[in-house]
């Protein structure tokens, strides 16, 4: 079912996602005029910027939800994502957590995790047979521990608290083992306690064969987790580097911090 299968193991520091000359517009409105962006393996990369900076649009393009007018998006330096549909992009190794927690509420926590793991072969029929595969069962147990929901494994996901749902969703992403993991405002609406638990989880997501992209408004949270930040303004990157440098940057202060 897929044209894209797993590639060779990535090396840390290599380019996980490479965006070149990207232009996205909706009717007359240009959301992203010309964007060039790179995220590398082994790093947690924060993307910040005021509302309308094009952060979510960028994610939409990478996951295939929005088709750009111009530009290229490459995964692993070789796979052109623009021609592919959402499921194929996901199977190529792009995972995404949405702003709103989206878990399958009528399924149990365990089933939510099970559904997220795609073993080979990945045709739908084979998938249904694979469901009881021992590797899957073991992996589900591991992730349940990791996200701290072992006790709730057999509850409906619908009854979980808001924070627990967010963690479950991160757990589902862990099951997917994506090469590029994108989190859209993972701590929005969380209590301080939940935020610090989430920060722990995100730090644990960092791995040499994975690039993590975090969109967030919460400066403190980004500073805590990100190795590198990019500041977007009206679809243009105006800063890239370490968070503490970003705070000093005059342009960044002007458009974002110094509001």
């Amino acid at each position, binding site marked *: 079912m897929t044209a894209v299968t797993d590639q060779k193991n990535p090396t840390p520091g290599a380019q996980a996602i490479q965006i070149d000359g990207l232009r996205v517009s*909706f009717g007359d409105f240009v*959301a992203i005029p010309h964007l060039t962006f790179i995220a590398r393996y082994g790093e947690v990369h924060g993307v910040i910027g005021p509302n309308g900076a094009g952060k979510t649009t960028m994610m939409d393009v990478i996951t295939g939800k*929005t088709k750009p007018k111009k530009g290229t998006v490459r995964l692993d330096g070789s796979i052109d994502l623009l021609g592919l549909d959402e499921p194929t992009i996901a199977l190529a190794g792009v995972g995404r957590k949405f702003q709103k927690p989206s878990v399958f509420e009528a399924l149990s926590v365990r089933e939510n995790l099970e559904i997220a793991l795609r073993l080979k072969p990945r045709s739908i029929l084979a998938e249904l047979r694979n469901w009881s595969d021992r590797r899957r069962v073991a992996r589900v147990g591991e992730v349940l521990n990791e996200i701290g929901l072992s006790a709730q494994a057999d509850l409906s996901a619908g009854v979980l608290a808001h924070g627990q749902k967010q963690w479950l969703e991160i757990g589902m992403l862990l099951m997917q083992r994506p090469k590029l993991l994108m989190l859209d405002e993972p701590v929005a609406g969380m209590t301080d306690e939940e935020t610090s638990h989430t920060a722990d989880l995100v730090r644990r997501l960092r791995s040499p064969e994975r690039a993590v992209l975090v969109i967030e408004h919460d400066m403190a949270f980004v500073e805590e987790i990100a190795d590198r930040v990019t500041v977007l303004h009206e679809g243009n990157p105006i800063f890239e580097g370490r968070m503490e440098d970003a705070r000093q940057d005059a342009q960044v202060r002007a458009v974002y911090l110094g509001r």
Partner: protein
Amino acid sequence: MLPIRQFFARFFIPLVLVIAASLPANSQDRTAILAEICSGDFAAQQSALGQLASAGVEHGEAGANWARAIVDAFEGRDLRCGDGIAVIDGNAGPIMAETLEPTIGVDPEGLDAPSVNLRLRAVASSANAVLRLYTEAEAAERLSAASYIDRRREAATATNIGAALELETDPDVRAVLTTLRASLLLSDADPTNRIGAIEAIAEDATLRNRTTIAEAIKSETDAAVIASGETALASIDRTLAIGQVLATLYAGASYASVLFLAALGLAIIFGLMGVINLAQGELIMVGAYAAWFTQEAIRYALPGLLDYYLIIAIPVSFLAAALVGLIMEVLVIRRLYDRPLMTLLATWAISILLINTVRVTIGSQNLEFHQPGYVAGGFPIIGDFIMTSNRLFAIAIAVLAFIAVVVLLRKSLFGMNVRAVTQNRSMAGAVGIDTRRTDMMAFALGSGLAGLAGLALSPLYNVNPGMGTGFIVDSFMVVVLGGVGSLIGAIIAALGIGQINVIIEPIYGAVAAKVFVLLMVIVFIQWRPEGLFAPKGRR
């Protein structure tokens, strides 16, 4: 209108006669004609009758009256001829044939009646009928005369029929005379005249005239006339084709108007609340029944205003449907906003309730609607295309409603609220817009528009409890095609679907039209799931 002809006949004609009688030229003509008719020579008598028949051409009604008196007398054998004198010896006593005044010193006893054979009698009857065209006050009499001439053409010429046609006001008589004159012209002995006739007839491009020319050139031998006839036919065909296209477009536009009104309401509600109102068709029915009730109430209370019931019903139909919509919204729909699929079932249940309530209380027969003059006739435009007033009424209602809705949505506070809630419900709620109230008002508005659709179609289609069911599918197709929340999209989609229906229906039948529309929409959704004119943006 007091028949002017009658008025003239009573008061002016005697006066004119006196004046006319004293005119020497006229007097000379009359003397010559009377001499001919008294001559006893068949050819001369025939020529005289011909001249008499054409008396109305030059001398109008006055001349025709005189001529008719002579022809009547000749036919009834009351005419007496002497040497240079002619007298009519009727029941009212002898009168001079030239002046129609009582005779002085002339004794009709010694004079002879000119001979009348069968052929002359036929010419005389025909001449009499021609003259009746000029002199009769009643349209029915003139119509009977015209149809008599159509059978007995002895005294009829293109000229005397043409002159009568110019004076004629009654459409039925005009129609007969027009054809008659055309066929008289076409049987003229001179080919040049026949060509002229063809050209004259071709100026009025109707199917009837096309048939007349086609018939004429079938038996024609002169090449030039045939060529001219074929050119004329081609030109008529072009005009007829244009008329046909316009008539189809016009019929399509009127169906589209009804569709547009229903779909506009559907689209506003769907855009705002994500709800498809399956009872929209029944709200159309409510609008039509409200129009009927208005008519009955006026008939009972103010019969003089009956002709204006369609105008008075505009607010009534709108408000009646809007009220039903309002009740629906408050009692049922508002509980279901986050469950659009359940709303389908609920609105369907309401439609069943409405249909059966009407069926039980009023009955399931078609309602009788009074047709006021302003929706009965039409304006001939080109070829056989008549812009009928009942369709014009539907189009006018749609245009007015469209303008009103545009103004309402663009300029009013309510319209701003509707647009705000459509775009972002929670944000609109957060900035203090009463979304519940907005929903309620918009639902009533959408329902009221369906009510107007019901009013607009009442002079066009049958009105009965089940009338709405056919509309919901087409209306929804308009919403899908036009895109939610786009007024222009709704117009273009309604026109498109309306036109497809009327274009395909006569050729392949109504079913084919529906199949085609459905397939088109399914294919269309493949290409643009958001509709033709959906506002672009991030979704």
